[in-house]
């Protein structure tokens, strides 16, 4: 019997060693990993390529078997068939059948979840609308772009209204609009009480949506904790105001000097490339320019938004009741207060939020942040370096 405060995923000393034909140890992909992923949590697995993220997910999905240690998903073994009816999975690449079209693909998935025809059809319509592929629903997936395939993969992962959503490199290949919608969707699903586990090496993704993260390197857990705690720079304070004239800036400089506080940076904030891109596309759509690919996507599917879950599993009921009590416990992650307004133009709402100035971070190296007790700063730096090499607005986040 699973209780509401039970972990959704638990691993204990989870180890996976790949061996060669002669059973000699070849690679230790995951080593003694201890994880506790709680209900309603958005949990991120971070790490550079080859750090063991995908292997960990595959162990949790029963696609690989542990060499040592334990893994439990929703209180059962990952290979348990009953558990799989409550899981949605999006692999790192959309492994779809190119000879099927989008509707046939989702219909096939729906059948595997034993959904009756009427429910299947309704959900397929809503999901295709949600991921913006209604107009190309009868095109074979072999003709889809990678981003469109990711969208249909996502729709497939949601067709059973899962309690646990496992996403491996979810936004790989998606355009910025899809990426943004995807992040909003994750937040909304989390609000609704879903548990989400995502792996990525794209830090912006994780930072935007995850409550807690675990950083892996070489198959070993290097850091784990809430995102805010891991990223907090307690030695500095940032104030954002309306535009200041030069004299007022000078006064602030003097004041800080009088108080013996070192001024690190004063900049004019600039918008993010993501925002600029979304604005341009929004204008193009408003002028009704045609496109042969995916469109921006519509509302989040009703069955994913609805207050009453349609797949009424035990956990779902317990989670729902816990959510309605509005009393998050100390152990549970703080759910973000943002609320999705599906009836509004999504792009407009996206444009309106998060207008935070971009701060140049290189100057902060003069005053390094205090290390968190469990963080391995070298790994974080490596990740930051890797991420900083990617231009903003690239096909990744």
């Amino acid at each position, binding site marked *: 019997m699973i209780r509401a405060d039970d972990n959704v995923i638990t691993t204990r000393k989870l180890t996976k060693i*790949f061996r060669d034909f002669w059973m000699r140890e*070849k*690679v230790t*992909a995951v080593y003694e990993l201890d994880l506790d992923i709680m209900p309603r949590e958005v949990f991120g697995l971070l790490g550079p390529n*080859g750090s*063991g993220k*995908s*292997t960990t997910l*595959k162990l949790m*999905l*029963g*696609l*690989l*078997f542990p060499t040592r240690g334990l893994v439990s998903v929703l209180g059962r073994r990952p290979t348990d*068939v*009953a558990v*799989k*009816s409550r*899981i949605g*999975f999006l*692999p790192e*690449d959309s*492994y*779809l*059948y190119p*000879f*099927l079209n989008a509707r*046939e693909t989702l219909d*096939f*998935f729906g*059948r*595997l*979840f*034993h959904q009756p025809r009427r429910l299947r059809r309704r959900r397929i319509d809503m999901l295709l609308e949600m991921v913006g592929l209604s107009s190309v629903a009868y095109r074979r997936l072999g003709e889809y772009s990678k981003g469109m395939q990711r969208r249909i993969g996502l729709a*497939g992962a949601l067709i059973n209204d899962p309690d646990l959503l496992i996403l491996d490199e979810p936004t790989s290949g998606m355009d910025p609009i899809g990426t943004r919608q995807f992040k909003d969707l994750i937040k909304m699903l989390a609000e609704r009480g879903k548990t989400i586990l995502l792996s990525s090496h794209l830090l912006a993704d994780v930072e935007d949506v995850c409550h807690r993260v675990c950083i892996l390197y070489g*198959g070993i857990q290097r850091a784990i904790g809430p995102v805010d705690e891991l990223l907090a720079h307690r030695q500095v304070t940032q104030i954002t105001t309306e535009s200041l004239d030069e004299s007022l800036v000078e006064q602030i400089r003097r004041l800080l000097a009088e108080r013996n506080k070192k001024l690190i940076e004063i900049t004019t904030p600039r918008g993010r490339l993501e925002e600029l891109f979304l604005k341009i596309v929004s204008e193009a759509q408003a002028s009704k320019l045609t496109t042969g690919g995916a469109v921006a996507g519509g509302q989040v599917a009703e069955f994913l938004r609805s207050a009453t879950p349609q797949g009424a599993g035990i956990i779902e009921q317990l989670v729902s009741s816990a959510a309605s009590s509005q009393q998050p416990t100390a152990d549970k992650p703080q759910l973000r207060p943002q609320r999705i307004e599906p009836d509004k133009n999504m792009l407009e709402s996206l444009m309106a939020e998060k207008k935070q100035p971009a701060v140049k971070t290189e100057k902060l190296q003069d005053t390094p942040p205090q290390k968190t007790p469990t963080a391995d700063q070298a790994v974080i730096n490596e990740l930051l370096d890797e991420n900083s090499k990617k231009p903003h607005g690239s096909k990744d986040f």
Partner: protein
Amino acid sequence: MGIWAITRHTLAQCLRMRIAVAFILMLAGALLAMPLLLKGDGTLAGKIQTLLSYGSSFTSLLLSLVTIFVSVAVVSSDVRNKQIFITATKPLARWQYVFGRWLGVVLLNVILLGLAGLSVYLLAVHYRSGQALNAADRQKVETELFASRRAVRPALPPVQDEVAQSLQRLHTEGLYEQALGNIMFQTNIDREQAHQYLVDTIRRQAMDRFQTADPGRTLSWRFSRIEPKGQGSSGPAKVANKVKYLYRLTADPELIGQLLPNGPVRVDGTEGRITRLEWNFFDLEFPQDQPLPPKIANLTAGDRVQIGIDPTVQITYRANASGDVPDNVLHSLWLVINPTTGIVYREYRSDTVRQKATLTVPARLVDQNGELEVRYVNMPHPQTGAGVSVTIALDNIGVTYRVGGFDGNFVRAWFLMLLHVSFLAAVGVAAGTFLSFSVGCLVSFSLLPFAMMSEWLAGAIRTMQYDRPQAGAITFVSKALLGVIGSILPDFSKASAGKFLVEATNVSWTMLAETVFFTLLLRTGIVLGVAFLIFHRRELARVQV
């Protein structure tokens, strides 16, 4: 529902793979080209036999290839392309996935076999409506092709007794040890093998005596359990002409094809004897020693009557000559005897050497116990008076009789083919669960010849055992290997659809049930069970670190 989802998906996948389309095109091409390329012996029966033989063989071969390719591909490509990640993370047990994949391939086979079967059947029926070369040709079409017949082999001669007596005689005369010594010396085998060799040699000699007739001598066989009752046919006919007791009637060629030259036929219940038989009409004569019933006597040209034809039995044989035969024709007298009543049917025949021949006789020669006695007299050449020894092996003679129609038998024969390809589908799916596409195909294809030619291979090993007893080790290994493979694989050659249809041999329900049990439930079940086990224990995700 999960299994059915996979089954449907597999079927859709197969139909959209070009290989299924290629099968349909190749089959259609072969069936269309067949009449142009294969002329047969010029008879209608030969044309239909060629169609049935090549049509079913081509379908079987092509479908076997398609089945192996497709069944290996549907599983191995899922693993290679990682689509299995999606399916395996759905609420579907792995055995359900494997079973669904197999069922999908079987469903594809049902469709392809249905298309192929329908094409061959419709062509055969179309040919049947064509004009036969002569009455004998028509008779062959109707009684030896468009029928379902049961075959009875002759009772085995008392060879064992002869072998025992010969051995006893060798012991009594003190020649047994000498014979063994000679064999061991000549063939370099041990004592036990030498004894077996001696027994086999004596048995062969005894069999030769029962199967070979010198000029002027007789061979005889006894057949039992013949049950042709109730399998006669009837139909409408029209009086074309009438002269006293002699009537000429026309009827549908398919009905006339059931008649025997000089055979009995009933016209509105009154029996007469056929005096002339053509493909579209026949003459019959009523007995003159008694007055004809008024209904028959008053018949005039243009009147319609109902004719009834007694069931017949066919004696099929193939005679071989020991020496040169000048015109390649063997002359013989056949005596077919009812063992209880002593009624004898006589027919002089001239048959080509080593060619299959059929003697059709009225079924009333079979006694109430289902027994029939057949004698063959080796006749000298009518002009030269020369003669040769003639051998009719026990395997080369049999009695066949109609037990059902062509349509049902065709469906059952085609169903046999489905059972075989279903087994191949299981082998392919099992190979795909742990091998790549290319290796899986290689393994599956390497098993195919054993299944298709196991009877021939077993015969070859037997021959090697007799002819080259010194190759004992090779024979032993070959036998063991064939034994193991034979116990796993069904024997396709024994239950070939083409063989049944060409010979119009009945595919009995018993045989069908046995094949369902041994091939489908047992062998296919075991192979799928192994596939379930392998797939259940397999890590489906590739190494990615």
